[in-house]
């Protein structure tokens, strides 16, 4: 017997030769549609559906201006999560891998994003009538990459110290100050070149709502791709802060949940479960490992008829006696 033959093995299921009973399939379907529709309508009336307004970059820059400037500085000096992501956005990171399987790298950069230019420099080019900003931009563009990097790091350092102090609930350093009236952020950073002017300009553009539109700019009039603004916002703190309040973080069973007390995507429970346990929880390659585990389990679901042991459980655990209770009772009553 070949390997496939062994997998298929024996099946003693006989064609049914017993009695038949009238059964109206069409009526059953109509009743089912009616019942399910009524149930859905009832649930819609009782519980409605969630619709939390989306966050905008304008909101983020107004509510958390220091966080916005810190994120923008990281985008500029290439140290933000998106800047270091790797494929499919750029070549600055290796991406995730499992042993020799490096699918993220193999599929390449399909949505190229240069965070410094796409998130900071190019949007600032659109700001009109601001000679100081244009001069700072010209200075930044003319500088060698090494100098740009040094300016960026010098500007980002006090901001990172400020963020660390806030996270550790310590008194933040006075090198970063916020003017509550204007929403402007002042960063005392020596050797930062034109960066303070650039960041001030970007904060102003963001607070006016202009950056939301500028990040969608492409050759087309109609826009449907929100990759850039979403990635920029995801690098910052507003989305995560809202998500934590709505129990949507990874450690809160993240993606399967939904805002409010709605069931969300409960069918993703197994996928989300792996992120809560070791070794996945602490792994830098958690995503690919979880996806591979789920891929194997999905294949196993499809192949259950061929998997020894799993395919035999229904015979060994007699839940079928409950399912076909009437049938077996009728069989016993026949002399």
């Amino acid at each position, binding site marked *: 017997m070949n390997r496939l033959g062994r997998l298929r093995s024996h099946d003693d299921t006989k064609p049914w030769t017993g009695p038949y009973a009238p059964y109206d399939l069409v009526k059953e379907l109509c009743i089912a549609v009616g019942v399910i529709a009524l149930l859905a309508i009832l649930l819609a009336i009782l519980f409605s559906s969630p619709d939390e307004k989306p966050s905008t970059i304008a909101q983020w820059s107004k509510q958390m201006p220091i966080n916005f400037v810190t994120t923008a500085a990281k985008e500029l000096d290439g140290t933000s999560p998106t800047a270091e992501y790797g494929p499919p956005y750029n070549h600055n990171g290796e991406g995730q891998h499992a042993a020799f399987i490096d699918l993220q790298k193999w599929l390449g950069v399909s949505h190229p994003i240069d965070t410094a230019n796409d998130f900071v420099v190019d949007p600032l080019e659109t700001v009109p009538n601001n000679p100081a900003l244009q001069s700072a931009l010209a200075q930044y563009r003319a500088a060698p990459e090494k100098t740009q990097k040094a300016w960026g790091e010098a500007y980002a350092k006090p901001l990172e110290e400020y963020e660390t102090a806030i996270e550790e609930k310590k008194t933040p350093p006075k090198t970063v100050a916020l003017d509550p009236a204007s929403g402007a952020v002042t960063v005392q950073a020596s050797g930062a070149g034109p960066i303070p002017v650039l960041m001030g300009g970007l904060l102003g553009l963001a607070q006016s709502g202009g950056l939301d539109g500028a990040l969608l700019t492409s050759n087309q009039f109609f826009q449907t791709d929100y990759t850039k603004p979403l990635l920029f916002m995801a690098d910052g703190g507003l989305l995560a802060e809202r998500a934590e309040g709505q129990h949507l973080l990874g450690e809160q069973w993240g993606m399967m949940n939904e805002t409010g007390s709605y069931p969300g995507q409960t069918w993703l429970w197994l996928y989300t479960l792996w992120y809560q346990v070791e070794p996945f929880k602490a792994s830098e390659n958690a995503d690919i490992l979880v996806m591979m585990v789920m891929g194997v389990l999905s294949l196993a679901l499809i192949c259950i008829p061929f998997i020894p042991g799993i395919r035999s459980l229904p015979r060994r655990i007699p839940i079928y006696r409950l399912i076909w209770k*009437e049938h077996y009772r009728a069989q016993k009553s026949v002399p």
Partner: protein
Amino acid sequence: MSIAPSPKTSWTTRTRESAVDALPPEKLLPDSQPSYVASWIYVFGVASIAALIVIIGSGVILSLKGPAWWHYTGVGHFINSIHLWAVELFFFVMVVHLWGKYWMAAWRGGRTRVWITGAVTFLVAVPTALTGYVSQQNFDAQWISTQAKDGLNSVGVGAFFNVTNFGQMYSYHVLLLPAAVVALVIAHVLLVRRHGVVPPFALGTARDSARVSPAVERTPALSGVDGPSPASSGAPS
């Protein structure tokens, strides 16, 4: 005027004849079922189809009005709520149906393809729902898309399936994936009708009858209730 008989070489004739051979009308829409089809568990299969019909119905209204409509009208929000709850019901009844069929070992008697199409339908329904969640244009969509991208990117899927691209996700959600689910459900139902509902285990049989027979697998017409059904054989029901 007499009608000329269809030539046997006609593709149309051959397609019709093979379709009718595989599923004659009385088998496609039988008016009786084997007597063992008498359990509440059987309701969940048809309930899954019913929920899919409600999902498609409410989804069509949402599509016709455009993706932003439900955010600023009460009627739109209500239709969206029906759509959401129909999805929740769909997954609930489908999972119960799946478990029920597992405990029946419903792949027996040449029904392997019935099981496979059912399982694949469940797996395809998951991204269908996910693309709906990321097409909502609200905070849920923002958060779910920025989180889901990492899993998809890690296996290279993000290179061609970008959850942060609303336009792409909306196309997948309203057309491509629902079409795949509907096609799979149609294939699944036709296979169920062709092979019939799996018969119960024979009591007292020591052998493992949950396995698949190559002989029966190759000749589905000999399996399950493909035996003499009253509708096709004229036997009393």
